[in-house]
Every structure is written in structure tokens, then in C-alpha cells.
């Protein structure tokens, strides 16, 4: 029995990565849920929006690095983030004016907007590929670890080293700041309140003199910020691959629906539910169980419930369970 080592191994491979991943998913799901709440459609281009935002951050980071600007131990990408948000906001607002606005005017069915968003997805995908190609890019610089496995072993005297990557801490901190700012905006400012009013009851909001186009513009600005931050954080934590964001679409949607689509608080909860289930179910628990079991005993297999390639199956299974038993999600979202 060696509970401390088991705990450290668990934290190292499950707790910390899942928290960082959960924060990234939560930010992505917040974007999806805001679009759903205000514009009333599921945006299939959201993965590509994240990819686009991350791409701008990657390019600006490279520019800063070539100028010799850096943040010391922090990644330069943090400095590039505002530029990424600005460019993504410009793209989203242009897309809205050129593409989506028409369908709002003719009051098209939500499913039409979903199809339109797949067209937007193609275009954004093409843009990203044409600008940066398809290869992997690492753009994290600065200190790699906040807590190093070797230092931790020396400090604690345990066999199992704890490693916390700088990017993981930054992910959580940035996500916390972003979410706090978003909730402050939605709950305390006049504009935020008008947005929530519009999301709750469009007709009533229109009657009380809220300008719908302004609400839509602000929504896209918020979505640009959320998507860029989510995309950049994910890219910092792993590496920037234009393809990968397409695959994030399913867990992001699942997170939004599990939490109750249209409900921001639910999106955050959903992000963590999905991330923790995914990481826990696909982690090989052999090490942890070896520590917990009697001395010199270890399980034969990897004690992995599902192969990591089935992580989509986890999001999907949770999605299906929620759809079957609680279609409005854990927190009450809009059911229609």
C-alpha cells in the first residue's frame, strides 16, 4: 500500500491533464452555447473558428519571437492572444454580415443555418490550410514545467514524480479569468443583460427596445474571444495541428449539450464532465493500482477501460445518455 505515490500518479496522469482539457472544452462549449442562445443554431464551424484563432496566435507569436519579444517564463503566445482575438472577431463579423445576416432576415429554419455553417466551415478550413499548411507547429516557449518531476521526487522523497506543465497552469488560469470576465459581462453590464434577455425571450426583448443586430455583433465578438482563447490554449498545451480542431467539435458539442445548451454555466460543467470521463476511462490504471495493492503485486493488464482511440466514444456515450434521460441537459438549457 502506498497511497501517496498512487495519489501523485493519479494527479499526474488524470487530475491535471483532465483539468486543463476540461478548461479548454469549457471555453469551446461556451462559444457554442452563446451562439445557440442568441442565434439559435448549432455552429458546425466552431472547431474551425478555434483553429483560425489559434493560427493567428501562432503567426503573431512567431513574429514576436523574431523581434525578440518574450514574456520570460510565460509563453509569448499570451501576448499574441489579443491580436488573435481581434483578427478572429473581424473574420466572424465579416462572415455574419456576408453570410448569416441574410438568413436571419428571412427567418430561415435553424437547420438551414446549420447547413450554412458547414459551408463556412469549409471556407475557414481552406483559409487555414492555405495560410499555414497542414503540418504540426509547436509555439509554446518560456519555462516548460512549473513543477518538474525530478525536483518533485527530490523534494518529497516519493518514487512517483509530479510534473505540472506551465501550459496546464496557464490554461486553467486564463480560463478562470475568461469565464469570470464573461459572467461579469453577462450578469452585471447592461449589454450583457440585454443579451441574456434576448436569449431568453426574443420577442419580449425586441419589444423592450433591444437592438437585435447589436446583440448579435456582441455575441460574435465574445465567441471570437472564447474560440481564440480555447484554440490557442489547446494548441499551447498539445501542439497546433489544423486538423485536430475538427475533431474537437464532437466533445465541444457534447459538453454544451450535457450542460444544457444555451446555458453558460452548464457549458463549463459539461466541459469538465466530458474531459474527466474521457481521461479517466482511457487512462491505464496499472500504475495507480500497483501502488494501492499489496507489496510486489501488480495487475496483469494495463487496467485500461477503453483504448485512447475510443475517447470520442466516451463523449458520444455521455451525449446519448443525456439525450435519452435528460434532453435539456444537467443544467436547464433551452429544450426547443
Amino acid at each position: 500500500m502506498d497511497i501517496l505515490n498512487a495519489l501523485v500518479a493519479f494527479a499526474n496522469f488524470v487530475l491535471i491533464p483532465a483539468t486543463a482539457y476540461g478548461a479548454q472544452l469549457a471555453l469551446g462549449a461556451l462559444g457554442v452555447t452563446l451562439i445557440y442562445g442568441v442565434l439559435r443554431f448549432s455552429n458546425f464551424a466552431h472547431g474551425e473558428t478555434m483553429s483560425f484563432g489559434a493560427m493567428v496566435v501562432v503567426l503573431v507569436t512567431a513574429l514576436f519571437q523574431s523581434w525578440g519579444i518574450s514574456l520570460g517564463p510565460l509563453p509569448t503566445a499570451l501576448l499574441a492572444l489579443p491580436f488573435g482575438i481581434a483578427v478572429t472577431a473581424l473574420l466572424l463579423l465579416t462572415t455574419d454580415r456576408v453570410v448569416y445576416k441574410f438568413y436571419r432576415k428571412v427567418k430561415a429554419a435553424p437547420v438551414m443555418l446549420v447547413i450554412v455553417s458547414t459551408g463556412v466551415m469549409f471556407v475557414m478550413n481552406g483559409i487555414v490550410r492555405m495560410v499555414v499548411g497542414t503540418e504540426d507547429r509547436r509555439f509554446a516557449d518560456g519555462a516548460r514545467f512549473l513543477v518538474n518531476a525530478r525536483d518533485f521526487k527530490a523534494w518529497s522523497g516519493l518514487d512517483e514524480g509530479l510534473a505540472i506543465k506551465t501550459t496546464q497552469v496557464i490554461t486553467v488560469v486564463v480560463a478562470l479569468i475568461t469565464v469570470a470576465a464573461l459572467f461579469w459581462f453577462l450578469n452585471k453590464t447592461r449589454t450583457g443583460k440585454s443579451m441574456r434577455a434576448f436569449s431568453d425571450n426574443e420577442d419580449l426583448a425586441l419589444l423592450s427596445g433591444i437592438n437585435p443586430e447589436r446583440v448579435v455583433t456582441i455575441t460574435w465578438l465574445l465567441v471570437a474571444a472564447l474560440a481564440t482563447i480555447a484554440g490557442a490554449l489547446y494548441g499551447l498545451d498539445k501542439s497546433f495541428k489544423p486538423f485536430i480542431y475538427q475533431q474537437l467539435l464532437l466533445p465541444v458539442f457534447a459538453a454544451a449539450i450535457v450542460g444544457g445548451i444555451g446555458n453558460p454555466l452548464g457549458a463549463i460543467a459539461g466541459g469538465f464532465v466530458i474531459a474527466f470521463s474521457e481521461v479517466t476511462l482511457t487512462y491505464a490504471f496499472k500504475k495507480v493500482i500497483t501502488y494501492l495493492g499489496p507489496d510486489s503485486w501488480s495487475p496483469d493488464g494495463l487496467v485500461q477501460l477503453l483504448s485512447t482511440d475510443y475517447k470520442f466514444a466516451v463523449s458520444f456515450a455521455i451525449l446519448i445518455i443525456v439525450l435519452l434521460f435528460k434532453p435539456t441537459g444537467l443544467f436547464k438549457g433551452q429544450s426547443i
Partner: protein
Amino acid sequence: MTKPDMKKSRAPQYFLAMALLISAVGLLQSWNSALSILNMGLISAIMALGVNLQWGYAGLFNVGVMGFVALGGLAVVLTSMPPVPAAWSAGGGRIVAALVVGVAIIAGAAVLWKKMPKGRTRGLVLTAFLVAGFFLFRFLLDPAVAAIEAVDPAVSGYLGGLGLPVMLAWPVGGILAAGAAWLVAKTALGLRSDYLAIATLGIAEIILAVMKNEDWLSRGVKNVNGLPRPVPNEIDLQNAQWFLDMMTRFGMDPTTGSSIFVKLLYALLFLAVIILIVTAMELALKSPWGRMMRAIRDNEVAAEAMGKNVTGRHLQIFVLGAAIIGVAGAMMTTLDGQLTPTTYQPLRYTFLVWVMVIVGGSGNNWGAVLGGMLIWFLWIEVEPIGAWIVNVITSGMDDGSAFKAGLIERVAYMRYLTMGVILLVVLRFSPRGLLPEK
């Protein structure tokens, strides 16, 4: 009276133009590429027919086309490859037992859910039952999988198929896809339309994950090569006297000739399938059933008030559409002669098919066929056309310039942008497509 006639008269012109486009490829590039485009165009047309059935007839948004296409491909392996007796004796029985137990567990869970009284006990018992069932399933499955995958992994390492004629795999592909579609639709239909879309997105990813990882079933990323073919082999043709005689009569090189001959045979097979499906769909559309479907699509509330079972009919049409897509997937894998799970990409196999349906004209079967052929043609030809344009523009530039090299590299990705723009433009300015619904 004149209006429908005018619309009707547009279809032959478009198909003629399509034929001219493909002939242009034949004349300018090679007849081999032209026939390749034709064959994949015909298969794409069948996929588009399946999506059109779901979207055009019932307004159901399926984002899992890729999954059903891949299932069709799996069907080819499972039906036509010869079985691997060593693998079967190593763990075949145990795999079958594990799968039976797996199904029994899920069925048992469903029975428990129905029979037990509502409350916390039910949730706990059900969870315990499922967890225990999962471990039992893995206990049965894992050793069998290891045993099978150890059997000569370089060439087999899987159970193989049934060794039946490959054409039989096409309907089997349809049945597999229909089964998967039934499972998805059963859970997601009746909820909001976006939920069905997201659920299909999920099932497609899972089908692909299974095909990539379950080596005992599909050899995973090691691919299955050398699938049986419904048409003769090029090499055999080149050695056959009657074929050589025919080639000398046409004055053709037997090597090129044999590959063109084989592609023509495929084209005939695919054409036969398309004619069959379109005829069936047109007949169905004109029948009372088709009128009911359109009534439901146009006004669900009214149709429900008339006593129509909307969710039931949606389920039916979703499953039928998926079956057609599955058939197309099986045909595609047959044409390729190999199953490579890593080549299935959602943009290519799901969203491109959507572009085909929307551009062709949703609700119109001939439109779906035309859209399938046209968009496939563009998907293949945008790249060379773009490269040609770039070459013309940059012809004045220095050959070594980084700008020119960059432009030429970028042009490879232009087709994604082009497809998106085509979809958006058609949706905005001509939402009924090239051949509108009659």
C-alpha cells in the same frame, strides 16, 4: 402547365454538359482519369441520393455520412475476403460468445430499466449491472482478440470474411449501415433537429474508431488489401487472346486498354445500381408514401394532426437513406480494391456529399445524381485548374522564387475554399439547386 415542362427540359442539358466535361478530361488529360472521375462520380451520386432521401424527402440532417460509407467498406471485407481458419480456431468462438454476451447485457439493461420501479435503486442496480457486464464482456473479448491478432499479423491477424462473392457485399453494406442508423435515430429522433446532427457526427467517429482499432475485425490501420473484384483483372486481360485481338482491332495499347476496359465495366455496374435506386425512389416519391413524406416535411404539426406517425416515418426514411449510403460505401471500397480506414475524413465523405445534394437540388433525385457527378468533378479538377492558373500568373516570375513555390503549394488546399464558397453561394442565391424539386 409550361413551368414544370421547362424545368424538366433542363435536366438533359445539364447531364449533356456533364458528359462534355468528362469527355474534355478524356481528351485533354487521359481517358483513364476521365473514367476514374466518372466512376467515383457515380458512387458519389449514390451517396448523394441517400442524403437526398433523408434531407430532401424528410428534412433530416445527417452529419454521419462518413460512418455509413465506412460501414459499407467494412461489409466488403466481412463478406468477400476468405476466412482465416487459424484465427477462427484461435479465438473465433470466444469472440462470437463475447459479442452475444455484449448484446445480451444491453438487452438485459433495457429490460431492467423497463421492469424496475422508478427511483434511486433502479439507477444503482442498472449501473452495477452495466459495470459488471462491461468487465464480463472484456474478460471474454480481450484474450480472444489477443489470440486472433497474434495469428500471422503481417498478412492476416484478423478473422477474415465469409468468402462470398463481392457483389453480395453491396446489399450487406446497406444492411450494416441501416442497423447503425436505426440505433442513432432511435435515440436522437423526436428531439431537436440539431441533436440528430450531432448524434450522427458522433456515430461516424465511433464507427471509424472501431475500424481503426479492432484489428481482429478489419485489420485496423494495417488495411485490408487485395479485395476480390467483380470484374476481371487487368493482368489477366492482357494475357487473354480475345482481349488482345480486340485491342489490335481498336488499335490500342493493351495496357491502357485493359485498365479502360475494367473501368468501363465498373461504370456499367454502377450505372445499373443508380438506375435501380433512382427508379425505386421515383416510384416511392409518387406513391402515397412519398406524398405523406413530403406532407410531413412541409408541415410536421399538420401531418401529425392528420394521424401520421411523424417520428416513425422519420426513423424509416433515415434508415433507408443510410442503407443507400452504405451500398455506395461498399461499392467504393470494391472499386478501390482495399479498405484503408485512415482515409475516411469527415470533410471529404460527409460535408462534400452535402455540397452535392444542395448544389444538385434537394428533393430531386436527378439533381442529387447531377450534383454528385459535378461536385466530384470539381473536387478533382479544381486543383489542376488552380495550378494551371497559378502557373500562368506566375509564368513571368523567377522559377526559384519562394513566393511562386508558396503559391503553388497553397493551391492544393484551394478546393476546400472553393467547395465552401460554392455551397454558400448556392444556398444564398439558388437554394433550390440546379434541378429544383418538381
